[in-house]
């Protein structure tokens, strides 16, 4: 038995080694770095230097506000949209189901840079198709990237476009695990399709919806690509700067690794806290 375990660990050793060096150590080390003043040479231990700055930093609270705003608006909209897409995908009336399933999932596969470039073009002030469409129905053009509110909207639309289909596929799997005869029993009970959705489908789908919501919360807390590429590093004037972007700016532009580490741990802590609250709110009553 002992010998067998030893063999197993020898096989695992290469992975464990790489995991320790490139995952475990950075996680521990960044925690230690967050307690050091890193703008001096050599770095020195100063426990309140970064954490003290964090709780009084307007840039941090701006990024936090932006991130939470996107979280509160975009995640519910996307999950609702994903549920609707999943229900439509699950409809027996749908032809070419495989094609739609692929189409909804495809945005996840598209490269981030390519998709960001396309969204910049779509929302371009002078020749973007969105403004052309607005013009064609008599609405004024919108300067999407020069004002904070439209810029935030573009980010939320982009993130929703990219991830709604992904969540829909997960929800579809959940829908398909609900036995058909439960719906047949409800049909015999004269329960309309709409009531079946609200009283049977949604409650039975709840664990999957919570799972998708937690995944999305974690993803949005780390949001980086879209504000970096689509609204050009959190523009206009920091109006779309997220925590992920602030972390990047502090760590890799200002080379202030101590402060960046403190931000990183705050992001992780918030994601865990919000997810736990979410799980607690949606727990099954015993």
């Amino acid at each position, binding site marked *: 038995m002992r010998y067998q375990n030893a063999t197993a660990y020898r096989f695992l050793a290469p992975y464990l080694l790489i995991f320790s060096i490139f995952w475990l150590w950075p996680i521990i080390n960044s925690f230690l770095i967050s307690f050091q003043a890193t703008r001096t040479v050599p770095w020195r231990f100063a426990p309140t230097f970064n954490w003290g700055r964090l709780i009084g930093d307007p840039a941090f609270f701006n990024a936090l506000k932006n991130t939470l705003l996107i979280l509160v608006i975009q995640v519910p909209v996307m999950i609702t949209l994903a549920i609707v897409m999943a229900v439509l995908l699950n409809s027996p009336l749908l032809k070419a189901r495989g094609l739609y399933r692929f189409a909804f999932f495809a945005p996840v596969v598209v490269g981030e840079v390519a998709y960001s470039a396309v969204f910049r073009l779509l929302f371009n002030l002078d020749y973007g198709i969105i403004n052309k469409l607005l013009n064609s129905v008599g609405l004024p053009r919108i300067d999407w990237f020069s004002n904070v509110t439209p810029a935030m909207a573009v980010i939320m639309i982009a993130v929703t476009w990219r991830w709604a289909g992904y969540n829909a596929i997960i929800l579809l799997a959940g829908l398909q695990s609900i*036995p058909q*005869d*439960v719906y*047949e*029993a*409800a*049909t*015999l*009970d*004269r*329960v*309309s399709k709409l*009531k079946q959705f609200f*009283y*049977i489908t949604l*409650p*039975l789908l709840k664990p999957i919806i919570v799972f998708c919501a937690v995944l999305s919360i974690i993803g949005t807390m780390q949001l980086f690509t879209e504000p970096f590429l689509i609204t050009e590093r959190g523009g206009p004037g920091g109006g779309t700067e997220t925590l992920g972007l602030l972390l990047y700016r502090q760590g890799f532009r200002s080379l202030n690794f101590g402060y960046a580490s403190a931000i990183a741990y705050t992001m992780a802590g918030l994601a865990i806290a919000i997810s736990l609250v979410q799980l607690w709110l949606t727990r099954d009553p015993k």
Partner: protein
Amino acid sequence: MAAVTLKNVVKRFGGFQIIHGADIDVNDGEFVVFVGPSGCGKSTLLRMIAGLEDISGGEIAIGGKVVNDVEPADRGIAMVFQSYALYPHMSVEQNLSFGLRMNGNPKADTERRVKRASEILRIAELMKRRPRQLSGGQRQRVAIGRAIVREPQVFLFDEPLSNLDAELRVQMRVEISRLHKELGVTMIYVTHDQTEAMTLADRIVVLNAGNIEQIGAPLDLYDDPANRFVAGFVGSPKMNFMAAKVVGNDDDAAVIELANHGGARLRKPLSGARPAVGADVVLGVRPEHFFEAGEGDCDIAVKADVAEHLGSVSYVYASAGTNVGAGPEELIIEREASRQRANGDHMVVSIKAGRSLLFDGTGARIR
């Protein structure tokens, strides 16, 4: 309460026809069982009565009203599913009342109906539990309770006992029988288990490959099956079928020679048309209709391969001769326990003409 009438009911899935024109009259208050091997179309037929499957042809009437285009909920039926189909996220009480609540039924009436169902099924102490906290038998009761609260004219059961263990199955069988007496409503029950059919039914409908083979009271089917399929399906253990050839004919009987028993001959009195001399026929004998040597009309010798002793009776699995293209002819012979045979023994048993059935090469009965 209502009668259910099926007239030339046909079901096609795409170009594939699976019910070939079913005619069934279920009387008001009757307990009718659809029985047949899996894939015979019995569940489809039940789902067509419920309205969960469309009807490709023919007519279904419930209580004298044609319901072909009536919504399932308006047909006055309630259905109990094989998998129970309980709402997993609701308590037993909510499961029972869900349909009524969704339809705005007055609260007091809903409570009265739920209470009555819980008393009939003795599940009052389970009302706050979720389905996953119940045993199989309890879930089955709740599923039946959900049907009772609808106060339907017709109950439909789709293999309701097949997920239960043997002991519970017997117990629930008795309960469903009791329920039928208590409520006095029409019940249509689908099963592949001929024992369930025999014990529950007022009348049995035997289905095979989308055709109705025979409709009749349980003992009528047992004593007087219309064809070889019904003869083999009803009764446990199965009826034995022995290959034979017609070797003689007279005014009121045919003489047949058993193919695997050394030229043993039986004179079988017949009332209908006599089969031609030389025709291949099959003689059907139930396990309990083998008699001691000399007691019957024709003695045959067999080799006892295995004996199963059940206490009150024993079943001897015996063999004799060789059928063309098959192994030896297998027979199951019921013996009283006191006359057990040891494995491997040779034994002689006797067949009575009046206790055997004759079938032609297509399986139709020769009377």
